[in-house]
């Protein structure tokens, strides 16, 4: 009985997490499209939450985004994921620009998730993203990108098999100085809060 109750209590978070992952998949694809890493022909126009978005045509690209975001789902549900970041590196693997989705899932939220409210809030991201291009930096040639998630705490190894799937990047190059933050969009619709902001190297950052 107790367990059942808990499950019920977690239901709104589960629902919110599911919507969030779906949204992240779309939003990340949009960022990739926006940054022009791939030719525009690699994307097709689709409609999501009644907004025009782009979807990757290449199955590998699509699969990478899909699997990496969906792999996060159980951790998002548990409230472990703090940030999901799309990082663009230059050809020397030095980060140039980071799109940060800061996720805040209220685990103690008890009532039902209003899916429409949540989607309405998330849609504003998809509208704001294309017009924020001016805030971003032009990418040099030969750059690459990746999706990285930052956890609040590492999941306990014993709790699930999922944790074995976590890859922790090593020998990554980091900025020496605190980055410059440019907020793009924030939303808060219980139980979920998402903020998207850009991180750029500080002006005083030593050039590589």
């Amino acid at each position, binding site marked *: *009985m107790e367990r059942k109750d808990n499950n019920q209590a977690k239901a709104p978070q589960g629902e919110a997490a599911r919507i969030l992952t779906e949204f992240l998949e779309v939003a990340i694809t949009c960022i990739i499209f926006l940054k022009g890493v791939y030719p525009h022909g690699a994307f097709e126009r689709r409609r999501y939450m009644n907004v025009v978005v782009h979807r990757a045509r290449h199955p590998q690209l699509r699969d990478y985004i899909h699997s990496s975001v969906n792999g996060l789902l159980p951790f998002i549900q548990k409230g472990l994921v703090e940030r999901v970041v799309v990082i663009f590196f230059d050809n020397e693997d030095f980060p140039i620009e980071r799109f940060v989705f800061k996720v805040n899932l209220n685990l103690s939220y008890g009532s039902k998730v209003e899916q429409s409210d949540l989607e309405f809030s998330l849609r504003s991201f998809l509208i704001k993203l294309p017009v924020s291009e001016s805030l971003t930096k032009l990418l040099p040639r030969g750059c690459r990108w990746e999706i990285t998630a930052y956890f609040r705490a590492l999941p306990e190894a014993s709790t699930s098999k999922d944790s074995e799937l976590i890859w922790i990047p090593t020998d990554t190059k980091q900025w020496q100085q605190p*980055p410059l933050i440019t*907020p*793009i969009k924030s939303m808060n619709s219980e139980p979920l*809060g998402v*903020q998207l*902001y850009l991180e750029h190297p500080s002006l005083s950052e030593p050039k590589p």
Partner: protein
Amino acid sequence: MLKYGGRFENYFSRHHVTHIICSNLPDSKIKNLRSFSGGLPVVKPTWVLESVAANKLLSWIPYQLDQLASETKKQPKLSAFGFKSGPVLDDLEESISGQAVPQSGIATLRTSCSLEANIFGKAECTEEVEECHSVSDDPFHPNAAESADQAPTYCMENHCEVELDAAVVVQSDAGYHSHISPCQDPKSDHNDCLEDHIIEESSSSKTIRPSTTGHSTLSDANFVENYFKFSRLHFIGTWRNRYRKRFLSSANGFKDMNPSRNAFATSQKTTIIHVDMDCFFVSVVIRKHSDLKDKPVAVCHSDNSRGTAEISSANYPARNHGVKAGMFIRDAKALCPQLVILPYNFDAYEEVADQFYDILHKHCNKVQAVSCDEAFIDVTDLRVEDPELFARAIRTEIHETTGCTASAGIAGSMLMARVATRIAKPDGLCYIPSEKVDDYLHELPVKALPGIGHVLEEKLKKKQINTCGQLRLISKESLQKDFGVKTGDMLWNFSRGIDNRLVGVFQESKSIGADVNWGVRFNDLNDMKDFLLKLCKEVSLRLQGCGLKGRTITLKIKKRRSDAGEPVKYMGCGDCENLSRSVTLPMATDDVDVFQRITAQLFGYFHIDARDIRGAGLQASKLESADRNMRGHEKYSIRSWLVSSPARKSSMAKGKGDQLYSDIGPPVQARGSFSGGEAYVAHRATLPALHDLDVGVIESLPPEVLSEINDLYAGELISFISKKKEKNAGNNVMDEEQSLSNPLVPPNKDFVHNVAEKIKSSEKEDEQYINKMIQGLPETSGSVTALLPETDSLMPSSLSQVDSSVLQQLPEELLADVLESLPAHRRPDFMSNDVYLDHIRDQTGAIDFLPSNNLWVGNPPRWVDNFRLSSCQLLNRIAVLYNKSSPRGQFSSVLQLIMSEYPLDDGGDDAVNCLCELMKQYIKLKIETDVEEIYTCSCLLRRLTSRSELFLQVYNCIIPHLQAAVGETYGGDLNICFIE
């Protein structure tokens, strides 16, 4: 008879009739008695007469119809004391129990309250009832016309049915009345009454016997009180408190006598007597009925024919039949059919327990009470020659005084004395000299040792340990390893008869509470809330009764397991999950309201369906004496000190202020405040007004005390002090006292009256403020009046003339009214008066500089009001813009509107400070969740800087703060920069 609550029924009804009264019965009816009487007692009319004469309900058994008495001779008879379990009934129960069980089940279900035996018997005779009606119809018809006065006589002559009022029974003796008057479904009372022309119980009687009608929380409004009234465990529990009150002085006495008794005890061979009354709960009840002495008797709270009530105590004859405490009545009756079930008699218990302890205290002043019927006495110091003789004397005296027997065990330690009593029982005496301890212990089952319960016994059994002898073979170390240090130690010691405990003083109770886990059924949360309230009242009463207050409040809930059905025990709790939550308060309390608030809160945590609740308990622990509490409060609370200390006026601070000013730095730091509304008012009630405090005195207080006082003033004190200093430093020509204490009310009495009229309809509180306003008038200093030009208007010429602190305390709607009627700045020239302006600024500053982070609290946020009342036009404008902005609550939208305002005038340092504080609090509020909004705001502010010097100052003031906040939360800097 009617006068005594009896009723006469025209028609036979199983529900309303309790007794059938007649002097003769035709043979046919005798033969078919059960179908005639429906299992009810058939009694001679003299029973009614004599009951009335005795002014109490006599047992009907001696008055049974002779014909019947001979008929039922084979049944065991009860003495006069046994109120209800009459032979007829017994007979019925026994004969029916087999066949009519399904029916009875239905009957109970239908009437949600517990049906007592009588009804039960009747309910089972459904088929017979109709017949019964036809039989009894004829003689009853004429009765309808009889007047009430004649009824008693009439019923003596006729076959009629009488129900005696329960009230009579209550007078006559404790508790058992419930079984005499049948339980009625309260709702059906009146309907039935009409249908059957039955003389009902008077409604007054119903209130007296709620416990009989409602046996669950559903049907009984006074369930909680009655529950405890009839609970044996509650009696035992509260007895302790009673004992403490009664014997505490003597208990203290022996302490004083033997300051070095510990040393004594070790050097001398101790002699301890354990005295225990024999089956206390039964023997007290039957002590005056010698005929029951040798019969099996058990005490139980109810003699329901379902037999699911548990026996709480049985006497030795009953125990010989295998009847044990905790057994269901039906099982007990199966073992011992002639078992007599009696109800509790709490008054008698109390009486006997008191006598018991009186005797013990008389003989020896070292008494340790264990329970109401069990105690240890330490006779070591009495140097009794022969402890056996001594104990015998005590036992004899107990027997003579109380009529009940007691057993005693004598030994060198409390443990062995208890073991001895066990052997001595019943009604015996046993002396275990120290040399024989081993023999006694060797074969003693481990279960008999105190401190060994089911769990420990099971564990020991698994290790093949059944007796103390076997236990003794195990080393202390391995015992400690297996059972923990303390338990292991205890086992090792006890198995050797070593018991270092001393016969000590009475132990103070550690917690006081009330638990109900029987008869708890709720339909919805409101039921539960009512119930909790009653529980709170009960606990509060108990605390008050003990003169204690509790700091920790624990709420325990028994929640029906999802798979558990209706419990076997009627209205019992069944298989339950036990949930518990507790909270510790900063201050001990015995206040019902506090309890209620806390329990409601605690209950909220459970998220439980009210229908699943089977029991609830409320406990107060961390007890403190109410007296000490009070004293401590007086002593340690700075409040009392503050109040008693002379509230000197601040004239002294004036001189000091000048030199102190240099320490505080720029006026930005001075955030004086009379914070808004309620908080301030609340403090006024108990604390001296801020302005009554002497800044000089306060400043010389040690920091801890200062912070405490500051807390009392909701953090306003510090700011008050700094503000005070600031003001003193300034060239304020106004008298300080006046500036602070005298509200700046316009010298226009008419206005005040005007307002007062408006207010008249609102609450008293408001009137107080107005009174204050009016009182302030005569004191308004000449300087202010002189400054004001003559005006014909009823309204003050400017908003700034109104004492803002008074305005703040007005209720919202009223405030809006007043403000509307006030022209914002009717006479700008008036404002040019420097002195006055300075003064106003002090006042507004006091409001605007809220030190705590509550500017954004409320809807609209508090700052809107503050700004609206401000003397600064810009701030006023911002407050207005807030109401225009959309979406509401976002400061960026306000800033956006400011962008379109033209011209932007400067508001001076105060406005800058206000805006800075506002922004800072806004950043704090939004930084976690909405960095975008913060970013937008700062971008807008930045654009505003080009338009106004003021916003440049604000911008540059908040940017460092903003960057720090962003850095803290996001690990970076916001992409904005300073403007030179």
